[in-house]
């Protein structure tokens, strides 16, 4: 049986339906991602699974227990990290871990968690003196204080610098290695691609697609994009006439969508092509194709193709 079953969850605020009939299930030991822009309903969905919000319709079952029916039993067995890292004032890192540990029937020793999350040096530091990355590590340590089977992480890396984000990814991958079932929300596609076995893409409270990242890309953003600098003689009309080209967009750079990148590249780099010898300012001939990049589709492309909007908007 799946660790998590979400069946037709609905949450309304007045006229706004924040979560609109969301269903999915998460297998044991899986990292499952909810990907979508701010305000898409990711956090509200998570909160109904955590027992922090009561759904208007539908239900969530965690480890076989109905969340709305028995929230305290569920809370005993799950770990929760909220978007805002919330620790009381004038509390040291060790005290925070001990405090949260005392709120559960069973808890892990503070020393173990400090070691595991590389916080031993900061054990006696007040939590408000921690860096963003340290704070997020503490926040995840607090989510694991009761040794939960299921862990919820709400935008664990938002606001972190790239190095701290990378460190945290290693921490989250460590959770998978220990057999935890993890549900995380994010609006970073690279995070979802790297960490999640499966991803649900959410927009306006609805799941618009749900699958593994490679299959989502294969289905919704199957093509390859060839990008190059725009130069005279290589306008949109010329490019669209080339073999293998599906679609061309141009602003500062030219983007060519194709399913057969090798055919397009062959035509572009043909030495007999008119743009192969473009006169430059110093009078020397140069090839007109410059700064060429070939890239695969990403979850961002999937999102754009499914919703017409951007993840960051």
């Amino acid at each position, binding site marked *: 049986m799946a660790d998590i079953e979400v069946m037709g969850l609905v949450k309304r605020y007045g006229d706004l339906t924040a979560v609109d009939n969301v269903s999915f299930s998460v297998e044991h030991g899986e990292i499952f991602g909810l990907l979508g822009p701010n305000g898409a309903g990711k956090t509200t969905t998570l909160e109904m699974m*955590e*027992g*922090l919000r009561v759904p208007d319709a539908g239900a969530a079952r965690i480890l076989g227990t109905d969340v709305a029916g028995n929230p*305290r*039993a569920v*809370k*005993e067995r799950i770990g*929760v990290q*909220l978007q*805002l890292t*919330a*620790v*009381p*004032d*004038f*509390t040291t890192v060790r*005290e925070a871990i*001990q*405090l*949260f540990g*005392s*709120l*559960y*029937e069973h808890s892990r020793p503070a020393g173990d968690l400090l070691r595991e999350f590389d916080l031993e040096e900061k054990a006696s530091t007040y939590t408000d003196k921690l860096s963003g990355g340290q704070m997020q590590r503490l926040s995840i340590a607090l989510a694991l204080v009761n040794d939960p089977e299921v862990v919820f992480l709400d935008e664990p890396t938002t606001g972190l610098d790239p190095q701290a984000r990378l460190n945290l990814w290693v921490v989250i991958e460590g959770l998978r290695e220990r057999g935890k079932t993890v549900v995380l929300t994010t609006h970073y596609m690279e995070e979802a691609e790297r960490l999640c076995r499966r991803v649900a893409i959410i927009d306006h409270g609805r799941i618009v697609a749900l699958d593994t990242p490679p299959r989502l890309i294969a289905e919704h953003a199957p093509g390859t994009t060839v990008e190059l600098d725009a130069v005279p003689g290589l306008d949109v009309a010329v490019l669209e006439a080339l073999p293998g080209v599906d679609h061309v967009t141009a602003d500062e750079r030219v983007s060519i969508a194709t399913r057969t990148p090798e055919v397009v590249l062959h035509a572009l780099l043909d030495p007999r092509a008119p743009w192969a010898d473009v006169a430059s300012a110093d009078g020397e001939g140069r090839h007109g194709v410059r700064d060429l990049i070939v890239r695969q589709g990403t979850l961002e492309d999937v999102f754009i193709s499914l919703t017409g909007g951007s993840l960051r908007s």
Partner: protein
Amino acid sequence: MRGFRALVVNQVRGSFRDRIALIFTLGLAVLFMVIFGLLFGENSLNLSLDAVDNDHSAASQQYLHVLAAVHGVTLNQKGHAAAFTDLKNDSVAAVIVVPSGFGAALSHQGPSQQVQLYEANTTSSTATVSDDIVAQVTAGFAGGGAASISLGSPRTEQVNLVTQMDYMLPSMIAYIILFSGVNYVAIGLAEMRVRQVLRRYRATPLRSSTILVSQIVGGGLIVLLQIAVLVVLGLGVFGARNYGSWLLVIPPVILGTTAFVGIGFLISSVVKTSAAARGLAAMITFPLMFLSGIFFPMDALPKVVQTIARVLPLAWVSDALHQVMNSGAGFSAITTDCLILVAWTVVTFTLAAWRFRWE
């Protein structure tokens, strides 16, 4: 229970680590004691007297009117028991007893009489002043040579001489109940809600009521601990005295704390942000501070203001604490105060629990 205790301990410990907040409440209370001690260290220039008229004649009334007309003298006519209670509580400098037969003696139709002056058993300057004033008035009223009326030599009564520090200690206890009680809970809860600490606690298996009650009990304990520190300072450093029973100090302190913690809880329930909580708390605490007799007796306030102040809980905390600590009053004297504080507690907690929002 383990979780509840851990939450309370964490909150109380945090409040003592928050030095700025601690200085603001405890430090300010000590500072007030110093300032008011320096300002009003000497006894006041007003001479307050009680008179007991046992003669009830036109002559005795006229005598008392002349005495009352002396500049700086406030004279109240009272029954025997009431007058001596005032004297014992140090609310008057002396009691004058006009004997029965005063009028007859003055018109030489009866035997000679002595007006008797009762004073505090102290060597304070007011006692000498009252001797002199009453002696002069009496001599003048009796018409110089006529020996039919004279002033008996003053008799002293055992009284509680309340110094400015003795008065300030219960006042500062009330001050801490007011400020810490309201602020710790109002601002604390609002801030924990804004910073989502309350929500984080709710994601644990604790009951919602346990979370809320732990924060309120924590706030109350902070107040009581601060009072303990203040009392030690007041007795040890400032030489303040308690004329009453320490046991009787406990009910007004506890009930005052619950009433003001209730107000703090109510504030946190009606505001959205901690800044709004801070503002509303200040709007409530500062006027109360000056209206409720904690810095000077409420009798000094205009009647209208007194009436308003008497509805508010601080006046009752202050009254009960002064009654016990300055006048050595028994429980019967503070029963009303305590009952009104219970009512305030019940009303504020009910309203706050009804209006409370978790986010």
